[in-house]
């Protein structure tokens, strides 16, 4: 039977990049198998060079932690044609070892920590064995990498949370988390752009509108950028 790729026993060493079909209308380029800032850098460099190449058949890209999904119209270009184009872009982007000089955009989000805005901050403080203020200082003390956006419109997967304040999810998820809520789940932190069900520990809330369909770039936070949380006393 002809198949597009073959099964392995799972104990072979995987070689990256791995370019494989994700059905007949998309190709997945995997650049690694872990969450790692340098792999994620390469994801966005490659996404950038695919965009620059302006390939007619390409409909959209979905960059994630360590892979890029390239969806294309197979009635415009077949699998092998797109495969070859991506292969050559990969070759040329890995040939230029120099960083593209790409400076991540930093998005500052004013956050009211604790109280009604962050009802779970005491859970986090207790689990970490520190004061509320220390949690706030640690959480707002670093810039977080936006590894990818997924789950819901504008929902950023942020990396770089200090392990000291990593906290498991709530045992029972909330039916509705207010828009703008800032939460912690294990060693991830993130912001809910819209009200939705959710199980993250909520430590604060921002009044900034993260996702606005009326705008041509609807998401304030974009993949590849960085997020900085700035503590404020009250919403403006």
């Amino acid at each position, binding site marked *: 039977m002809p198949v597009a790729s073959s*099964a392995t026993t799972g104990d072979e060493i995987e070689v990256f990049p791995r370019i494989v079909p994700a059905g007949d209308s998309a190709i997945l380029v995997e650049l690694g198998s872990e969450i790692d800032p340098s792999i994620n850098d390469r994801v966005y460099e490659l996404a950038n060079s695919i965009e620059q190449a302006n390939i007619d058949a390409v409909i959209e890209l979905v960059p994630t932690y360590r892979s890029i*999904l390239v969806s294309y119209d197979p*009635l415009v270009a077949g*699998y092998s044609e797109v495969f070859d184009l991506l292969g050559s872009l990969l070759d040329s982007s890995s040939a230029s070892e120099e960083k593209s000089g790409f400076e991540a955009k930093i998005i500052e989000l004013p956050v009211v920590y604790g109280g009604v805005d962050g009802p779970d901050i005491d859970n986090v403080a207790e689990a970490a064995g520190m004061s509320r203020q220390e949690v706030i200082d640690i959480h707002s003390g670093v810039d977080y990498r936006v590894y990818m956006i997924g789950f819901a419109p504008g929902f950023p997967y942020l990396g770089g949370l200090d392990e000291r304040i990593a906290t498991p999810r709530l045992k029972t998820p909330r039916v509705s988390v207010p828009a703008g809520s800032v939460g912690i789940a294990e060693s991830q932190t993130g912001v809910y752009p819209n009200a939705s069900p959710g199980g993250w520990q909520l430590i604060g809330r921002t009044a900034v509108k993260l996702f606005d369909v009326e705008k041509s770039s609807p998401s304030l936070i974009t993949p590849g950028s960085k997020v900085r949380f700035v503590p404020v006393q009250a919403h403006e």
Partner: protein
Amino acid sequence: MTLIQDEGRNGYQQLGVSVSGAVDIDSLAIGNRLVGNNKSSAGLEVLLGGLTLEFSSKTVFAITGADSSPHLDGVAVPMNVSCVAHPGARLELGMVSSGLRSYVAVAGGVAVAELLGSRSTHIASELGGIDGRPVDEGDVFELGTPNVEELSGLILEDQIVLSGELTVRVILGPQDNEFSVSGIDTLLGSSYVVTDQSNRQGLRLDGPEIESASGRYDIISDAVVNGSIQIPGDGKPIILLADRQTTGGYAKIATVASVDLSILGQASPGTIIRFVGISVEEAQSLLLSREQRIYETELIDVVDSLTVQVDGLDVRAGVAENGSVKLANIEGSIYPISVDEYSPAE
């Protein structure tokens, strides 16, 4: 439940925006072609039937997808045929007899505002359609400008027949390497049944467990596509459909060939599914044939040449190929008519 849907909201997945769109995209496409619309026009997706519409102006429409025995002012309307509704006419869709979703296409398309390039409704994120919600009693929508003024009763032959057993063609990957050889054999050699835990986001299947190579099923979350077959920790496949989230954390053993996605939009709980592996090249050539079938096949005029005089007008009347459809052609427009007895012309 009725939703406004079109081809889907492409281009914003990297911002977490789901594509959505008609689950049985072929039926919407056929409906749009029958009423002379562009591919991108929006129609109504009616789950399980049970919708009543009133037209405020003369409108060409067609019902496709699952048979919901539609009636216009009490007269049976054939499926997959373009017909004309007069101002004030009421179109009623009954319960579907098999399958899940009927589509109502109207000339000019349902013209609610576009949001991020699409009119599709995505309920989970409350985007598109009417305020991101299903159509409700009392809603009124504008229609766009029709491309053609009148249409005769047209039908596209060779409709897909809905059945309780489906063979679904898949392309292995992108993460088939996460599964053991026996796991892949299980997927391709077993029967699965669609459970009632299925919706526009995906079909949850029950059947033999699929073995992963390492014993774990989680991967670092990455992008998914329409038709991705995820295997969660219980080893039972989930086929992702139109309303899927943009990313997911389960390994994807295979991906449904695009040409077989539409029929999955009609797979009601209890439907048996068998998977068969094909190459990506085969899947792409099947997709090309599908495009030709839907967009290049000549439409058939369903009305025969019997002509009678009614109130001084020449009226052409007849039956469609299946013998159950009764239509009249009056000055070039096709109307469903009520006929007690019909004998073909000599």
